[in-house]
């Protein structure tokens, strides 16, 4: 086990930035800390680095309690959001800084820096100053500098925040490759769920200082433990329904709820993938009109309007779309294959409820 947090909290004055957070990071893992801004993820990262001190709780790195060990002795590599390169030093000196501080011998420093320049595709730039580098190059220098003293953990704060979208994609793939080459335990902070899903082995999701869920990208997407995670990861259709006569309704949509009292208000959520579309307006129970198709590469996002004015979001592949012969403005019918009951932020979700019949007569199991 590389890093362990035990009941760690951090308060800034009255504000609770991190609230009783515990999790462990395995050796060699690539872990994403994900959440909206102000969620506490950066504070967690900075506490692991030693740049912030926890108000309560303990932090362990490789089994050693590090609460009272100051930053410079923790042997961590930290990559700042804006890189924080030493602007008065060239690339070589930036990377060599940590080695010089640790009093490495000069030939060893040269060898190590050369190795990192090679690894990070920076060969030929060693004499350049930070202002002579592009955003992506600056970031790679920052990573090289952090890696040079062979840290036990690499911590990255919003590593892709400051570069433009096209480079960001390249950098993500590149970070994954780098991690698999070096196998150093790596934690990175991001507010971009897609980025976290793509890069991490596991994701820790924070909201308002609380740890909401920790799991593999697949787990948090398919088995979100609460409404916050369900709505934060991926896209979700959310409907406010009200129970009347054993049926929960909104617009023309009906969900069987035999054991619920009249007047109870519920929220129902389902992923766009759960919405099945047929070009035959009478195949499924609910007719609708295909309003917009958004091309997102191989995947398409589709908006369907129901007669009551409800809009539902669906997703399918380009091939499926072509096979069904769909187009904007077409009359279609839809089926919601599965859904969950949302019980409010931080509250556990219902298990997935699967619609049992493809036909129009019945719809799903009871709520």
């Amino acid at each position: 086990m590389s890093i362990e947090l035990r009941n760690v909290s951090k308060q800034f004055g009255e504000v609770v930035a991190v609230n009783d957070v515990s999790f462990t990071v395995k050796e060699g893992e690539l872990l994403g800390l994900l959440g909206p801004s102000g969620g506490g993820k950066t504070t967690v990262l900075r506490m692991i680095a030693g740049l912030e001190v926890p108000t309560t709780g303990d932090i362990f790195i490789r089994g050693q309690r590090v609460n009272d060990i100051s930053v410079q002795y923790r042997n961590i590599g930290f990559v700042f959001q804006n890189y924080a390169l030493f602007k008065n030093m060239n690339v070589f000196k930036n990377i060599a800084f940590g080695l010089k501080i640790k009093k490495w011998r000069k030939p060893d420093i040269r060898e190590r820096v050369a190795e990192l320049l090679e690894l990070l595709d920076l060969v030929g730039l060693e004499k350049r100053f930070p202002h002579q580098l592009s955003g992506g190059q600056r970031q790679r220098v920052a990573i090289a500098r952090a890696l040079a003293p062979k840290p036990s953990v690499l911590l990255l704060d919003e590593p892709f925040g400051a570069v433009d979208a096209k480079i960001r994609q390249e950098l993500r793939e590149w970070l994954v490759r780098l991690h698999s080459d070096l196998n150093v335990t790596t934690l990175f902070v991001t507010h971009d769920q897609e980025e976290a899903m793509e890069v991490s082995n596991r994701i820790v999701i924070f909201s308002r200082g609380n740890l909401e869920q920790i799991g593999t990208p697949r787990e948090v997407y398919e088995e979100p433990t609460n409404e916050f995670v369900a709505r934060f990861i991926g896209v979700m259709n959310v409907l406010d329904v009200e129970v009347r006569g054993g049926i929960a309704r909104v617009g023309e949509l009906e969900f069987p709820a035999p054991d619920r009292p009249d007047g109870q208000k519920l929220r129902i959520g389902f992923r766009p993938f759960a919405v099945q579309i047929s070009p035959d307006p009478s195949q499924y129970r609910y007719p609708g009109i295909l309003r917009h198709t958004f091309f997102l590469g191989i995947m398409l996002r589709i908006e369907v309007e129901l007669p009551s004015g409800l809009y539902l979001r669906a997703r399918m592949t380009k091939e499926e779309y072509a096979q069904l012969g769909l187009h904007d403005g077409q009359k279609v019918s839809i089926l919601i294959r599965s859904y969950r009951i949302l019980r409010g932020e931080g509250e556990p979700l219902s298990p997935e409820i699967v619609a049992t019949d493809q036909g129009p007569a019945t719809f799903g199991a009871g709520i």
Partner: protein
Amino acid sequence: MQTETQIFRRATHKKSQRATEESHFVRWFLIWIALAFVVVFLLLPLINVFWQGLNHGLKAYANALIDPDTRSAIRLTLTIAGISVPLNLLFGLAAGWAIAKFNFKGKPILVTLIDLPFAVSPVVAGLMFVVLFGSQGFFGPWLAERDVQIIFALPGMVLATTFVTFPFVARELIPVMQATGTEQEQAALTLGAGGWKTFWLVTLPSVRWGLLYGIILCNARAMGEFGAVSVVSARITGQSDTMPLHVDKLYHSPAAASMTAAFAVASLLALLALLTLVVKTFLEWRQQREYELAQRSVPEPTLVARSLHQRGSQ
């Protein structure tokens, strides 16, 4: 048809230009006023100082400068500046660091207090020290018992000069340090550097131009200070006169030659001012350039460029 539209375009173009620019008359009027002001109030007096110093020939000028009293004044001025400037350098670094990098209660009060010497008349500043350390002053008897003299001696002049030149370094450093932020220092810490090494290797180099700029201004003011120093100096010629005090004394002396001498010494101070301006301009240019370089973004090398580069090297 075509010419008509062209004329029309030209007319509207002219009109839009006029909307954002002043008329020729106003522009020239303002420029000439500013220029006349500079010439009458700054350039003419400055030229006059050199003219008056040199109008009895180079020999008289040189004699005035190698006069033992003048040399003593120069020595004293250099001594005082040599103590005051380093003291304010230390203070300015400490204050700049505290204000730019930490958050603490009473920070606005400290920022205001740093400016206090600018707001207080130098004569009043001198009197403050007389009241504190003079023989009738607050610490006077205690100091007299121990045979320590501050007022009408070198320590008093150093104190007065330090007080008056107190804000220069700090005021130059605070904005530079605030702009740099604390991330570079934090990065140094994560790489294993302690506080002292971080300061020497990271903080100091990143503020070096601002710091030099502050020192230059501080030094110019320290050498030129008159009011505060005149209050706490014993004003014994050849012993406790600084250059400005010496100029003043020569100027008021009835001897005919002393007028030339006054302007000769004054011309040295004026030279110092000119030198300060040159260095200041250079430092500002360096700072500006560094800032612009830091702002400039280098385009990402695109995939095309990379493959071309590879082809070129084959």
